């Protein structure tokens, strides 16, 4: 015979069992147990004594920094479980490939996104490239977010170009486009002055920055926290937009698209911008992919679905960028280009027209 007391205790036991079965199981692994073993190489050679920095957007925590050992290896332990962007930016001295008795000093850069696997460990190789790899004209900075204001002022936008090659390049007849989805869809197309491909009137020296402003105007007169773009090298101009500011001292990129009455306006925190050599001006069927010199896609949303072909830009930069914040998007080093804007660009707190941020 079961007593009342026994029934009571059995009921309690049942309640406790029921309580634990209702919920998901408790993880056994504690956070801050992630480790990352990274090998830093340049042209398949390990690089010793190079600073490696890990940064994450998953938590508002400061970055982790350490240096590679003599084998080019660096080990981070006790990291929180998160996705990290690895940045390597250093000066290395290597034997010259021409005269092994001499040494060359190179600026090398490397970047990669790493995430923990199931057991919380990462082993990866960071392949660095030297400054000047994949040289050419690059879209180096995109300032589109606008300054802090409460009347929707974003007309201080500009794009900064950079010549990362060792040769003087020419902007004559090149085009800048704001793209819709894919290369077949051109929203705006503006052209630099001069003859495409053969023109020699608008040179860009090696290592030179070029500022292409929406309006080459001193925007600090409107908003003190904005930028003075009177010294811009070029400005966008649409003669069909009667209100468009035109600085007579600055050469113009003219609108090519028939029926477009707007200036080169683009998304404050999300869009696709391309720079092309101007050999394909028939925008109705899009832009010839072979004519594209550089392409950047940006979006403030981490869940953004890519719009442009991956062969032009495998990622997108600007995640976390805020409208009307003076934030700007700039390459991590002048002309640094791996064809992945997620890695190539970083958000800087203030625009830097004509120079590279520190």
């Amino acid at each position, binding site marked *: 015979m079961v007593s*009342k007391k026994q029934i*009571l205790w059995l*009921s*309690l036991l049942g*309640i*406790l069992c*029921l*309580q*634990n079965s*209702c*919920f*998901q199981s*408790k*993880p*056994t*692994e*504690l*956070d*801050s*147990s992630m480790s990352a073993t990274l090998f830093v190489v340049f042209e398949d050679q390990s690089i010793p004594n190079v600073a490696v920095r890990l940064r994450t*957007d*998953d*938590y*508002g*925590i400061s970055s982790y920094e350490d240096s590679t050992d003599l084998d080019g290896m660096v080990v981070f332990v006790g990291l*929180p*479980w*998160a*996705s990290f962007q690895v940045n390597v930016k250093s000066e290395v001295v290597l034997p010259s490939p021409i005269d092994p008795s001499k040494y060359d000093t190179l600026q090398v850069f490397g970047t990669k996104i790493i995430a*923990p696997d199931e057991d*919380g460990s990462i082993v990866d190789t960071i392949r660095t490239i030297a400054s000047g790899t994949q040289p050419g004209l690059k879209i180096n900075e995109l300032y589109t977010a606008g300054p*802090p*204001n*409460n009347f*929707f002022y974003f007309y201080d936008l500009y794009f900064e170009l950079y010549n990362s090659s060792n040769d003087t390049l020419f902007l004559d007849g090149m085009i800048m486009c704001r793209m819709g989805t894919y290369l077949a869809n051109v929203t705006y197309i503006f052209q630099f002055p001069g003859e495409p491909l053969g023109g020699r009137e608008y040179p860009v020296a090696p290592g030179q920055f070029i500022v292409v402003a929406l309006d080459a105007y001193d925007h600090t007169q409107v908003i003190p926290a904005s930028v003075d773009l009177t010294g811009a090298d070029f400005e966008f101009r649409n003669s069909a937009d009667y209100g468009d500011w035109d600085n007579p001292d600055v050469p113009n990129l003219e609108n090519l698209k028939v029926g477009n009455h707007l200036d080169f306006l683009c998304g404050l*925190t999300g869009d696709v911008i391309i720079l092309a050599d101007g050999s394909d001006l028939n925008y109705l069927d899009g832009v010839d992919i072979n004519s594209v010199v550089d392409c950047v896609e940006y979006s*403030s*949303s*981490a*869940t953004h679905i890519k719009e442009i072909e991956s062969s032009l830009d495998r990622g997108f930069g600007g*995640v*976390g*960028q*805020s*409208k*009307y*914040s003076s934030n700007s998007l700039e390459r991590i080093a002048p002309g640094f280009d791996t064809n992945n804007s997620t890695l190539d660009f970083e958000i800087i707190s203030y625009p830097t027209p004509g120079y590279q941020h520190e």
Partner: protein
Amino acid sequence: MNKAIQQSPKAGKAMQQFFAIIACSSLIFLGGKSWAQETHSFSFLNLDQEFGKPANSYLFSLNPALYHLSFTENFSYYSISANDKLNEFRREYDPKSEQNYDFLFKNYYVLNSKASFAASVAYQRDNKTGMARSLEKDFYEHYFAFTDTTRGDTKYEGPQLWFLYDRQLGKHLGFGIETDYKIERGLKDVYTRCETIVRDASLRTGLACYTKDHKTVVGLYGEYGSVQSKYEAVKELQDAIVKTFFGYHVFRTENPRSSNNKTDYTNRYSASAQLEKKDLFTPGLDLQIAFLASGRESTVEVGSTTTPQDRGYWVRNTNGIHSALSFYPQGKSYGLQLSHKLALLEDWARSGSYDILIIERDATSNNFGLSFFKSWSQKLSLQTGVSMEQITGNYAEYVIPFEYEEDRLNWGAFVEMEARINPILNLQFGASFAQQNPYFYWNTEQFSNAALYLGFDRLTEWGTLGVGLQYACWSPKDGDQNIQQAGLSIFYRR
């Protein structure tokens, strides 16, 4: 207010047994108030509770099947209360001041000898003024709290409906069902103009077995609750910049959007068993014991409404035993109660992205209370008591390691008096004092809390009308700033 108590011949012997139990128990248990913001709840403010009497079966156990055993006559009351709290001393995400307004109407009908029905309608409005960045009503109650960048005023308001029905299924078996439904809407008056909507629904069903004389009662109840909380912070010229906290130290800055949303989905389960024995060894000696096992799980999502991202999952398990031994001998004008609460709390939280533990808390609370009641010729009644609580535990955050070893001791004492000026007019006075070791986020070692209550009630031809004033002050051990609260309550009962 207090009925005459008849003399018991066994009272003397029972008193000896009672004090022996107290003496043994005092060596084992400590108790008191758990949280620094709590103060003694004066019994005059609890309109379900008769002054100087121990908690009845329902109030002790919260088993709806015991309602008709606890309340035998119809009643209804209206209550309005207003409180103003000035938080000179406050935590980082607390408001500067708070104003709370509550309205409650409650009605109870004994339908027949076997069934009864109770219902209440409440409306609450809470204004939180000068709240720094928190989009939560109480930032510190959440492990995944949501914040923005501005200081503003937020108003919360909404209705609450409560129903209870209980029925005797036989001479020795009762059944009860109780449901509670609450909606609350909050709105912040500055950017990000966050709108909060909370829907809280719960259903509790209980069974009780009792002897014919109701001196032995065994009860069980189960409860399920569902809470959904939605937060929407919207842009104003600038995108909505919000942060999600993981514990109290680590946060994530969410992607700026025109609208940033957070949703908490919470399920609560609880079960309880109760045992009550009246006239245990002698008339007037009652024992009440309640076992409680409860758990809640919350899933937190943040992002846009179309593509929310999992930010975390957390579970809180609470198990406990609440026991009370009361001795109110028949025919005597005094009574004693010894109570003990043991609570075991376990919290843990998992990351939204990985199967990894990010927060953990274990705590054990032992709360011991002793109260004494005395009445003089029914003209003056006095109730006084002490309580002590020992809380030990451990709180740990693992993202960026943080650990807090909890070992806190709180104690308090109170005195309440009711004077019958004439057959229709009663005056009430209450005072309490407590010292509390608050949780680490208060950033002070100790609070001293003093509270006063002054009120009266008057019998009119329509019912009883009562008014009460309350004042409470919390003073931290270090620093000049404190927390003050003043309140006014008015009730009408018939």
